[in-house]
């Protein structure tokens, strides 16, 4: 999402690495845990998560356009937090549609793992990018773009198929 939103244009400026990573770390943890703890089969909650995320992402896009991509540090941290809002619906779906309900340990372990792995992936991409002389970033991270869409599509398909199956069973029972 960061790439597709043009947010990625901001990562080459090493002077802003700290506010950028502050936002990414805070945002990843906050939204992952929020998603994990609010994950349920209640469509209102799921829809709300998706819409909150969409609104945040649109806000990020708006900030980039208004500032002409020259984003002050504090706004960069806020933007980085907001762009991580993708984790909210992702974790909600993950818990409600894929994993089902779990205990407190499950609710903590999943977002913790997702957050740490995500931060490692971002940091790894940054290091590779810097080592390659700040070039070919597209080739480095575009595969992650495809992965994100694939996960999104897989989750949606799974949910729809599961829902269809449930509907079919209830029709048979009737």
């Amino acid at each position, binding site marked *: 999402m960061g790439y597709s939103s043009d947010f990625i244009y901001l990562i*080459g400026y090493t002077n802003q690495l700290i506010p950028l990573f502050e936002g990414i770390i805070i945002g990843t943890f906050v939204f992952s845990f929020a998603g994990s703890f609010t994950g349920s089969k209640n*469509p209102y909650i799921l*829809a709300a998560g998706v819409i909150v995320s969409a609104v945040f992402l649109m806000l990020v896009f708006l900030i980039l356009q208004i500032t002409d991509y020259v984003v002050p540090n504090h706004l960069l941290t806020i933007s980085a937090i907001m762009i991580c809002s993708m984790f909210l619906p992702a974790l909600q779906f993950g818990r409600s549609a894929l994993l089902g309900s779990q205990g407190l340990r499950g609710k903590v372990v999943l977002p913790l793992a997702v957050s740490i792995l995500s931060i490692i992936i971002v940091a790894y991409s940054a290091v590779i990018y810097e080592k390659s002389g700040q070039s070919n970033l*597209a080739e480095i991270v575009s595969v992650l773009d495809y992965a994100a*869409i694939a996960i999104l599509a897989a989750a*949606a398909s799974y949910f*729809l198929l599961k829902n269809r199956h449930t509907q079919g069973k209830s029709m048979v029972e009737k």
Partner: protein
Amino acid sequence: MYRFISFVIVIFFILVALSPLASAEAPQQQTATSTTSTPIKHVVNIFLENHSFDNIFGIYPYNNYTTNESLSTNLSRPLNLLGNSSLLSMLTEVPSGIFNTKDPNEGYIPYHIDWNHGKMNGFLNGSGPQGLTYYSAEQMAPEWDLAQQYGLADNYYAPQISESSPNHLFYLAGFSPVMNDYGPPPYVPITQSIFGELSAFNISWGFYINDTHASFPDWKYLSGHNAYSSHLQSWNSFLNQSSNGTLPSVSYVFSQETADTQGPPDNMLDGEMWLLYLINSIEKSPDWNSTAIFITYDEFGGFYDQVSPPVLDGVQLGFRIPLIVISPYAKEDYISSTEMTHTSLLAFIDYNWNIPALNALVSYSDIPIDFFDFNHTYSNGMLERSPQLFNSSSGFPVPSTIHFDPVTETSGYNFSRIFPMKPQIPFSTLPYNRTGSSDLNLSALGFRIYNRVNFGYTPLYETPGFYSILVLSQIIIAGVIYTSARKRGDFSGKKQ
């Protein structure tokens, strides 16, 4: 419903997957032109990296060790740093024997902080204090000598306040679909570039790089380049063609992807050696008498420059960079204040071969025509000047081959003694002024425009449009969830 969603998803993925592979428009043959507007039959564009005008020519032609009053009094003050001592005192002169400095922070953001909406006072926060330096004759004398013997522009700008990719594309195609290097790789159909236009008009051209086996970014940017692969050639081919007198009409010679670019961490000395070897080989060529060489840098690299860049036809130009023009028709010791950018070089090509302006921006770009004097007859009865070779015996760092080993120990090098050179023609006898400018452009001359629409693109999956689609897809998924839950009766008071 599910079939429809599946269909949309499949189509969407196909579009995303194929977008970077979109093929270029087929080249169209146009009427060939055999005549040129000037005696110039060969243009050689040489491209270096990452230095501002003030960084290399800020104190030109001042030299601690040698003086030449007749030279210094005719140069580009007040745009020269010498005309602003308070400003000069805030910058650091690169010490003797040092040929490279710490790389300033580069990129769209630091450059815009440097620029600060034209105030030019954000360098400490943007590119950083390492950008507040300037070189002197001790390092730059070979390049200063080229400028002194021929012409130098003091009002030439990078096309964008950004780093390499967009500026390179302006150099090749007169526009850019991308804003910096961090994002997606750009794709410009080669038919939209100067190369496509030259081919369409049967004008020969070559794209010369060190190693044709390597994946060269600027060549990769030009989609559809496979159809033109015979034009991608090595430096060695260029040197052979130069010595045989078979240079194409237009040559682009790239220092990029080597240690000779002069952009940090490459040192200035290697770039000067490479440049001297190349210039000498062209001056020895049978084609010399009909050649013009344009040497410039892609962008300013984060190094300080005092001049706020202007706007050209709605395009905010980038920072000031050097342009040296070498030709047997170039005025001697000439400083051009014509407002120019990379599209001016494209405009010169279009003007010289009487072909349409590559695009609208090119048509509004002033042509570097004031560098030349096509009317003067010299004492030898010729219209053109004799070659001015730069010999190693005179102290110039001319290598024995273009593929020389990079110099890593530079502490023993000081070139201040070789600047200035003795003028080839006494200044007092020159029939022209040594400063000037021109506002001639193709639009004023009524040239038609070749590319009315620039259709360079960024792959769909890397655009804000794709981002919007993702956000929209989230909303659609939310809608589907809502609808299916409603059908199941989840809104009739049932709890999960």
